């Protein structure tokens, strides 16, 4: 490598993605595989049942229509957050309202989901009532366990944004995580509800 002697002093290169975003990206890959595991389990157990027996006939049906509405809300919240990220580059003030709306829609989604759960438990669908119930609560619960911390993080970031302290890297990482939460949901909806 003697040609290297001609090379000038190396200089520090800017990372392609900031630390926080890169870390989140790899975390998301691991999390995607978690959901892939759940979905695989669901598909395999579903196939064990004869046609028409899944979900088990005596178990309550899932509220497909209501959830379709909430799914739309969640997707809208993802779009709003993306828009907030665009406006954040101009100024923190411009991003305030779309971000607030995005968090609100996300929280509403989780809230409606919670109400649905309470109803379903009342109708007799529980973790132990059937494999279907088990998978429903575990998969949807796993999603909620991602959505709720994400909402808390976004709320805190909004506070920082109002104070003008929000770092772009942290905001980008949180946005990326929220996109994951938003985009994985339609897949789960399609698998579990439909």
């Amino acid at each position, binding site marked *: 490598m003697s040609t290297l002697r001609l090379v000038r002093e*190396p*200089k520090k290169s800017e990372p392609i993605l900031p630390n926080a975003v890169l870390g989140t990206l790899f975390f998301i*890959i691991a999390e995607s*595989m978690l959901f892939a595991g759940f979905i695989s389990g669901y598909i*395999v157990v579903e*196939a064990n049942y004869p046609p028409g027996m899944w979900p088990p006939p005596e178990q309550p049906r899932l509220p497909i229509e209501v959830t379709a509405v909430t799914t739309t809300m969640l997707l809208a919240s993802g779009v709003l957050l993306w828009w907030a990220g665009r406006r954040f580059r101009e100024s923190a003030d411009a991003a305030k309202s779309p971000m607030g709306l995005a968090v609100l829609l996300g929280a509403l989604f989780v809230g409606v989901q919670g109400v649905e759960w309470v109803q379903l438990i009342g109708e007799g669908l529980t973790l132990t009532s059937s494999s279907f119930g088990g998978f429903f609560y575990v998969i949807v619960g796993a999603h909620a366990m991602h959505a709720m911390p994400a909402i808390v993080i976004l709320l805190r970031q909004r506070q920082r944004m109002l104070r003008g302290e929000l770092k772009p890297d942290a905001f980008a990482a949180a946005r990326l995580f929220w996109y994951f939460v938003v985009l994985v949901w339609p897949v789960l909806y399609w698998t579990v509800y439909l």
Partner: protein
Amino acid sequence: MALLPVLMMLSTPALACPVCGGGGANAQAYIDTMIFLSALPLLLLGGVAFFFWWKTMRVTVDEEPSGRLPQARPQP
């Protein structure tokens, strides 16, 4: 790799197979999820690697025509 589908076809519907004992749908579900689970990480990581490669190319062209500037490269 072209051998794989041939081998899959070649065999009679598996008899010594516990999974198939559970019915054809179940065996198919296992095959589907096997493909799904195996392919998904490679797609995800391949996507990330491609993104980095693409970014690197763009940055290198923008800033350093010689292309010698050190840049982070895609992880596999």
